[in-house]
């Protein structure tokens, strides 16, 4: 089922640069910084092997990107600046977290819209069911009124 990885692995092996590079594992002053780094690299997508983040990817470009993230962190850059710098080079594609803007507002707002919409529908169902349940004890006038309303086909206006 998963054929692409081997293919990518082959590509990576064939196209790896011949020079042995310096340390790819970084030193951090604090544990918090190390975690921040791990978080950052786990949210950036490798443009070469496009289904891995740069933390998991062995592609040379991922290593370069990790280097850059580390270098910018050491220079005191914020997370937004770091992600921004990589987006400026490789495109929005590299961030796994889509930016919130007018293209994606529907995407981000969707869970809230769907859930609230769904709950409103269920509220409507309950309301209708309750009305039916209340039918028998209706007084004669109420019933007459209800029938009148039904006849005029505007049952939604009825809020009692």
């Amino acid at each position, binding site marked *: 089922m998963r054929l692409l990885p081997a293919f990518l692995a082959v590509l990576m092996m064939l196209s790896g640069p011949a020079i042995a590079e310096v340390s790819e594992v970084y030193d951090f002053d604090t544990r918090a910084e190390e975690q921040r780094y791990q978080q950052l690299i786990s949210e950036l997508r490798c443009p070469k092997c496009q*289904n891995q983040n740069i933390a998991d990817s062995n592609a040379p470009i991922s290593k370069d990107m990790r280097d850059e993230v580390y270098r910018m962190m050491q220079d005191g850059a914020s997370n937004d600046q770091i992600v921004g710098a990589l987006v400026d080079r490789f495109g929005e594609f590299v961030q*796994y977290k889509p930016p919130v803007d007018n293209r994606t507002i529907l995407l981000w707002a*969707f869970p809230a819209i769907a859930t609230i919409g769904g709950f409103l529908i269920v509220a409507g169902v309950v309301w209708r069911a309750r009305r039916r349940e209340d039918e028998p004890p209706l007084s004669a006038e109420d019933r007459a009124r209800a029938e009148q309303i039904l006849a005029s086909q505007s049952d939604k206006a009825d809020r009692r």
Partner: protein
Amino acid sequence: MYPELGQLALILSLLLAVLLSVVPLAGALTGRDSLQAFARPLASGMFVFTALAFAILTHAFLVDDFSVAYVANNSNSMLPWYYKFSAVWGGHEGSLLLWILMLIGWTLAVAIFSRKLPSVMVSQVLSVLGMVSVGFLLFIILTSNPFDRLLPNVPADGQDLNPLLQDIGLIMHPPMLYMGYVGFSVAFAFAIAALINGRLDAAWARWSRPWTTVAWSFLTLGIALGSWWAYYELGWGGWWFWDPVENASLLPWLSGTALMHSLAVTEKRGVFKSWTVLLAIVTFALSLLGAFLVRSGVLTSVHAFASDPERGSFLLALLGITILASLTLYAFRAPVVHVRSRYGSLSREIFLLLNNVLLVSATMLVAIGTLYPLVLDYLDLGKLSIGEPFFNTTFSPLAVATGLLLGAGIFSRWKKTDGGWLARKLLWPLAISLVASAAVMIGYGGFAPWAFLGVFAAMWVTVATAWDLWDKSASRKGRWHGLKRQSRSYWGMVLGHLGLAMVMAGATVVSNYGVERDVRMQPGDRAMVGDYEIVFTDIGERRGPNFTAQYGSFNVYLDGELVTDLHPEKRQYPVGMSVMTEADIDAGLFRDVFVAIGERISDDAWAIRLQYKPLVRWLWLGSLVMAIGGFLAIADKRYRVRVRDEEAVKSGEPAVPGKVAEAST
């Protein structure tokens, strides 16, 4: 010679499938029993020929017949026999054949286990399944023939199976997953048959239920196996990546979960029929969508098969015809009349409906998150990636809400639940879960809002389920008797919910309290991960059956005491020229310690990935518990359908929803 026979068998199977999709349906519509009687023999014949084709392909793998292109591309003479066997479904063509074998296997199962169902219904259901089989058989025969030959230039040896697939997890994962995907075709066929003959009643819901539950259980196992495999085999220690193909398997799971619960309401109370039948169609449609996404190449994914636009077009046509036809049928035939059934605002009906709202919202969220990049690209609005950070932010609230609702819903009653009574009932479980969750926070040494909510939701579900079990099993003859008295379907529900709580607890704890470190180590170095101290002692080389490996030796200490030795490897597979990282894991019920070797940094130093993964096993154990719950539920006595129903329908008497529903409760 054999491969040609295999192809012939597929063609014969296709002919039978065509007959199956026409003859029994015609019989059902015209009321001719003689035509309906063809349904079962045709289904059996289809199964025999498809199984024969599958056996022939398997044989070609086992005897290294590299004249068959598919075998040459996916196997190698050096491969151990069990991987040769699993290599049958290691590529597009063979996995499609497995998919079809399972589809027809389900068809046969319906034919066998529905002897007590009305013949008209069975004929229609089997005809619908026949139509689905026609589509997939045409697909394999026209675009993806696994028996294509490489004649006369037969390669001396095969190109080897992708090393990632040379693994026990991957022997099991696709069959389970496909059993689930394809299993939903039965619920779909029942829904279509019910729409055709206008009999969307409680009996229909009852017949659909066990099939849906068993398909769902297989899908649960399949997804869990895939996650487990990714965790130890892909070498990065992740268990869910929100990759498009993973999402594709989650989609029918989520809507299938909604379907199971909605079917329960329709069976017991005869309401929400239009909704339930829609869910049955949508769940199968999502299974097909998953097949399309994996095999068409429209999205990038680690798991995708080599893409081929021709196959993609064919699959899209297949998907389009199936879905458009069934949704059109739905639009015209689904009932809009309201059954006069009473339920109050706190009734179990409403709780289950709210559960459906959350599950369907989650389904749509995953669908939109998966397809959104495609839409934006089409509209030329840029190339976006939608991954883990997005889904973690948006999916978690829905999951927590589902858990909170579930805990309360367990105590609700059909028709009407007294609000004050329910509130009093929930007081103790609430208090216990709050205290227990706080204790877990302290135990893991750190409070985080989402960690708390996730753990609380899991606790809440667990305590409420246990409380309800305690209530229900009260008996004058003693607790044991009370427990034994509970139906299997009730036990199934209990396990299903406890399994879900385990998954929620595992996911929350491992995401919030797991530790991941990439460190530079040379033999002799020590590093801490969580409370564990890892000592890199040695590095060596060894030779496997079809690879060579460098392996590291690591000692794992906790509080100065040796816990275990770990030997992660970096393997080179010469045939496919690929490199694989084999992590080594010390697995435990409450935590895993994970070590993987990365790049060689200098002559003696290596990049080593160390991970401490608390409760990660609960993800898969919980899934297993859920699946066992599903299998237990279908073993319930009431699914041995009584002859009475059958006679009632045969004599032309309309099935009375109320009667059947009452009989079951």
